[in-house]
C-alpha cells in the first residue's frame, strides 16, 4: 500500500484505468496514511471517509461497466476548506463558520466530482486565507512535513502539507497574494495560480474578490496540469470567469522545453531580505535554464517595489466588505443572543468572538482605507499602482516569454517566529503579489534545498494572462532537468514521518 501513496496522479489514474489497482484501494491507502500521520501534520480539518470511499466505489463500478474514465478518475484530492461542499463543513479556517455545511457545491467542487476525482477531505488554512503560515487558522497550525516545527506556508498550508506528506497526490489551493505558490515553495511541491478568471470563484469564500484565484497543487508539473484542465473553464455563475478555451496546459506539460525561449529576470526580485540559500538555488536555476537553451533577459519593473503596499490596501478593502456578511443573522456562529440584546449587539459580539486577530486587523485596515476622505489617498492610489504593475508586466512580456524569480525570499520559518510581526509575515509574499495584482499566471516548483537549512526552495515562473500553458512548458523542462540532476524527485529527501 505504501507504494500507492507515492504515485503521481497521472500514474494512479493509469493504474486504475488499467485495472491494476482499484480506486477503493487507492483511497483506502490514503485514508490509512492520513490516519497514520495527520495527527502530527494537521493538514486536514475534516476527512470524509465515507464520502471518499463512495466516490471511489462509483469509479470502480463505472470501470466495471466498461465506461470510459477521465484522466483523473479515482485520484484522491485534498480540498482547501474555502470551497463550499454540500456534504462537508466549510469553515474557511474560522470559528465564525464552525460546523457550517453549505447548501450548495462550489463550481470547482462540482467539476472535481464530474471528473471523478475522489475528495478525501478539507484542508487547513489561514483564517479566510489571510496569512502566509497557516498559523492564523482558528483550528491550530499545520506542520511542514520537512520539519514539523516549521510552517508549511499559507494560506494553503494544509494543502501543501497534505501533498508533501503523501496524504494526497492532488490538492486545491487559492491564491490571493501567493497562497498557492508560497506553500508549494516551502514544502517542495508544485502550485499554480492560473490567470485571474480561469477557475470559477463561485462557491469559493471570498477574501479579496479581484485577486482571489483557485488553482491546482500537486507533486509534479504534469499532475498540476491535469488538475488545472479539470477545474478551469468558463462558468456562467462567475461574471469574472474567462469565456475562452482553457490553454493547452496538459499538452504543454508533456512537451517541456525552453529551447529558444526568452526568460526574464526582474531586478526588483532580489536584494535585501533574501536568504542566501534561496538566492543560490535561484541563480542555479537561471544557469540551468540557460543550459537548456533559454535566453536570459534582465528586466526593470520599478512598480514592483510598491506591490506589497498596494496589496495591503486593496485586499483589506475588499475583505472589509466581503466579510461584512458574517453578522450572525443567517448562518454560522451566534454569540450573545440571550433575548436582551439587539441584533447590532449580537453581530458585534459574534464578530468579536468569531474572527481572529489577523482578520480583524485587515477588516479595520480596509474599512479605514475605503472611508470617505481617505479613499483617494489609499484605495485610489493603490489602484493606480495596480495599473502601473500591469503596465510593467505588459512591457516586460514584449521582451520575454516568461519571467522567473524566487517564489518566496526565505525557506520555511519556525512556527511562531513571525506570528506577532505582521510586517515580517507579509514579506513572504513579496515576489508573488505582483502577479495577483496584474491578474496573470504563475507557478512555483521545487528548485532544490537551501544548503544552510536543508529546506525546499521554490522557483517561480510567471507568464502573461491566458498563457498558462507556458508555465507548464517551462516548468516541465525545469522539473525534468532537476530530477535528472538529483536522480530523484526532491520530495524523496523529505523525512518519512
Amino acid at each position, binding site marked *: 500500500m505504501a507504494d500507492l501513496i507515492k504515485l503521481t496522479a497521472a500514474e494512479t489514474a493509469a493504474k486504475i484505468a488499467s485495472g491494476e489497482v482499484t480506486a477503493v484501494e487507492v483511497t483506502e491507502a490514503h485514508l490509512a496514511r492520513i490516519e497514520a500521520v495527520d495527527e502530527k501534520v494537521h493538514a486536514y480539518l475534516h476527512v470524509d471517509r465515507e464520502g471518499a470511499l463512495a466516490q471511489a466505489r462509483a469509479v470502480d463500478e463505472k470501470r466495471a461497466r466498461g465506461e470510459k474514465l477521465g484522466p483523473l478518475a479515482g485520484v484522491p484530492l485534498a480540498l482547501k476548506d474555502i470551497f463550499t461542499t454540500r456534504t462537508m463543513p466549510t469553515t474557511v479556517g474560522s470559528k465564525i463558520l464552525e460546523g457550517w455545511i453549505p447548501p450548495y457545491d462550489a463550481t470547482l467542487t462540482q467539476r472535481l466530482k464530474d471528473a471523478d476525482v475522489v475528495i478525501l477531505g478539507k484542508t487547513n488554512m489561514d483564517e479566510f486565507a489571510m496569512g502566509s503560515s497557516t498559523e492564523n487558522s482558528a483550528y491550530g497550525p499545520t506542520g511542514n512535513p520537512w520539519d514539523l516545527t516549521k510552517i508549511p506556508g499559507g494560506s494553503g498550508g494544509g494543502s501543501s502539507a497534505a501533498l508533501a506528506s503523501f496524504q494526497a497526490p492532488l490538492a486545491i489551493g487559492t491564491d490571493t497574494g501567493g497562497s498557492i505558490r508560497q506553500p508549494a515553495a516551502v514544502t517542495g511541491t508544485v502550485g499554480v495560480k492560473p490567470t485571474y478568471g480561469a477557475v470559477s470563484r463561485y462557491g469559493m469564500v471570498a477574501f479579496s*474578490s479581484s485577486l482571489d484565484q483557485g488553482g491546482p497543487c500537486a507533486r509534479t508539473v504534469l499532475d498540476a496540469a491535469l488538475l488545472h484542465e479539470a477545474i478551469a473553464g468558463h462558468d456562467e455563475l462567475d461574471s*469574472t470567469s474567462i469565456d475562452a478555451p482553457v490553454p493547452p496546459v496538459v499538452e504543454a506539460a508533456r512537451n517541456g522545453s525552453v529551447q529558444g525561449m526568452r526568460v526574464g529576470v526582474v531586478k526588483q526580485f532580489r536584494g535585501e531580505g533574501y536568504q542566501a540559500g534561496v538566492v543560490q538555488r535561484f541563480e542555479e536555476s537561471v544557469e540551468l535554464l540557460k543550459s537548456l537553451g533559454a535566453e536570459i533577459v534582465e528586466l526593470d519593473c520599478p512598480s514592483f517595489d510598491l506591490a506589497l503596499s498596494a496589496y495591503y490596501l486593496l485586499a483589506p478593502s*475588499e475583505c472589509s466588505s466581503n466579510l*461584512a456578511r*458574517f453578522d450572525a443573522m*443567517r448562518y454560522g456562529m451566534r454569540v450573545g443572543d440571550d433575548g436582551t440584546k439587539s*441584533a447590532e449587539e449580537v453581530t458585534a459580539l459574534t464578530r468579536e468572538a468569531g474572527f481572529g486577530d489577523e482578520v480583524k486587523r485587515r477588516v479595520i485596515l480596509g474599512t479605514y482605507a475605503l472611508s470617505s476622505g481617505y479613499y483617494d489617498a489609499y484605495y485610489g492610489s493603490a489602484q493606480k499602482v495596480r495599473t502601473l504593475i500591469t503596465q510593467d508586466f505588459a512591457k516586460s512580456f514584449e521582451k520575454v516569454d516568461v519571467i522567473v524569480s524566487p517564489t518566496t525570499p526565505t525557506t520555511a520559518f519556525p512556527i511562531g517566529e513571525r506570528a506577532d510581526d505582521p510586517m515580517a509575515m507579509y514579506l513572504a509574499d513579496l515576489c508573488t503579489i505582483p502577479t495577483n495584482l496584474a491578474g496573470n499566471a504563475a507557478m512555483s516548483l521545487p528548485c532544490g534545498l537551501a544548503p544552510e537549512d536543508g529546506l525546499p526552495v521554490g522557483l517561480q515562473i510567471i507568464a502573461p494572462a491566458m498563457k498558462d500553458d507556458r508555465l507548464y512548458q517551462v516548468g516541465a523542462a525545469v522539473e525534468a532537468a532537476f530530477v535528472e540532476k538529483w536522480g530523484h524527485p526532491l520530495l524523496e529527501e523529505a523525512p518519512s514521518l
Partner: protein
Amino acid sequence: MTVTDLVPYEDALASYDPVMGLEVHVELGTKTKMFCGCATTLGADANAQTCPTCLGLPGSLPVVNAIGVESAIKIGLALNCSIAEWCRFARKNYFYPDMPKNFQTSQYDEPIAYDGYLDVQLEDGEVFRVQIERAHMEEDTGKSTHVGGATGRIHGASHSLLDYNRAGIPLIEIVTKPIEGAGERAPEVAKAYVAELRELVRALGVSEARMEMGQMRCDVNLSLRPNGTETFGTRSETKNVNSLRSVERAARFEIQRHAAVLSSGGTIVQETRHFHEEDGSTTAGRIKDNAEDYRYFPEPDLVPVAPARAWVEELRAVLPELPRIRRNRLREEWGVSAHDMQSILNAGAVDLIVATIEAGAGSAAARKWWMGELARRANEDGVELAALPITPAQVARVAALVDEGSLNDKLARQTIEGVLAGEGDPDTVVEKRGLKVVSDEGALGAAVDEAIVGNAAIADKIRGGKVAAAGALVGAVMKATRGQADAARVRELILEKLGVEG
C-alpha cells in the same frame, strides 16, 4: 405623537422659496432578480424565493440580469438622459439584518443614465420641466417584521422575522436635480412628477409601479430658502412616501414645518423623516449630521456594463409615445376637458378606452361605458377597472348593438351586467335574456294604441299641444314592452298617431 409647529401654507410661501429633490425607487417587473435566477412573484411563502446569491451565502457571486439593464436604459432614454458607454456597479456598505451581504450592490459615481429631464403637466395644463440627475441600477433589500412591539416598529419588539424574497429584486433609483422655481406649486409639482414617472414606467412596460404594493417608493427631500436668495437651506428627507396624494401632502407639511422652525429663529436639522398617512404629518427619524459613510467602491465581482451604442439606439427607436404626449393627443381626439382627462387617468381607464375604440366603438360611447356603468361597478366591488371581467372588445360590441338600434341604454346596461355575471359575451347575453329592442312596428303600434286608449286624458293633453306629456305615454309603452322598445321610436309613433308635430 409630538405636536409639530406649523405656519399656514400661504404665510410660509410669502417668506420662503421651497427647493425639492425627489428620489424615486422603481421595482422592475423582471421575472428574475437582479443578480440571480430567483423568481420575483409577490405573495410567495417567506424565504421561498431565495438562493445562495440573494441570501449572500459565503462563496456566492452575482450575475447581472440583462433585462434589468435593458429596463434601466429604457427608463434613462424616456427621461431624456445620456446613457453611459461604460459604467460599473459599486458596493454601498452598511450593516442591516435584512441586507444579506451587508452591502447593497448599487451604482455610485458611474450611473447607467444621467442628465435628463421629464416634463410634467399640472392639472391646469401648465408644463413644468423637472431636471433628472441620474437613474441607476441597484438591488432591493429583504423585509424585516418586528414582532411584539406595539407599533410594528423595532422599538419594543421582542424579535424580528426576516424575509429575503425581496432581497435582490431589481430597483432603478431615479434622482432629480434640485427642483427650483416651483414656488407655491412645489407640492403639486412633486405629485405630478411622481404620477408622470409612474405612467412612464408603465408605458415602457418595465414595472407595474403600484405604489400601494411598494413597487414604487418616493423620498421627498425639501428645504426652504428666504425668497430672493440663492443658497439652499438645510434639507429634510421624508422617506417612503407611498402614494401620489402623500407626496403632495408630505411636501406641503414640510414647507409649513420648515417655515415654522426658520421663522422662529430655529435651524433645520438634517435628518430623515417618517410620513404618517393618517394625518399627513412627518416625524423625525435618523439624524444625518455627517454624510453617512457608505465606503463605496467598484463591485469587484461584476464586470463593467458597456451597452453597445447600436443597442441603445435600437431601444430608443422603439420607445413608446410618452404618456403626457399621448394623453394630450387623446384628449384632443376625444374632445374632452383637462379635468375629464384627469378623471379618466385617475380611474385607470385610458388604455381600456383606447382599446375599446380600437375594437370599433366611438370614443364617446367608450368613455361613457368605462367611466359610467363600469367605473361604478369597479368602485362597488373595490377592484381596479381593468380587473372587471369584461373586455374592451365586449364593451365595443355593446356599443355597436346600441348604435344599430338593437339595444337601448337600459338593455345595454343589462347586457353588461350579464357579461360581468359571467353569462357569456354580449350577443349570448342578449340572446339568453331576450334583451332585443322590440322593433316590430306592428307589435309596437299595438302597444302604442293600447297606451293611448288606456291614458285617454293624457292623450288629450298631447293633442291639445302639451307635447311634454308624451313622456308618460312613452313610459307606459316601455313598461308594456318590458323596456325592450326604442324609446325614441315609441315617442315618434305616439306623436304621429295623435297627429302632433314633435
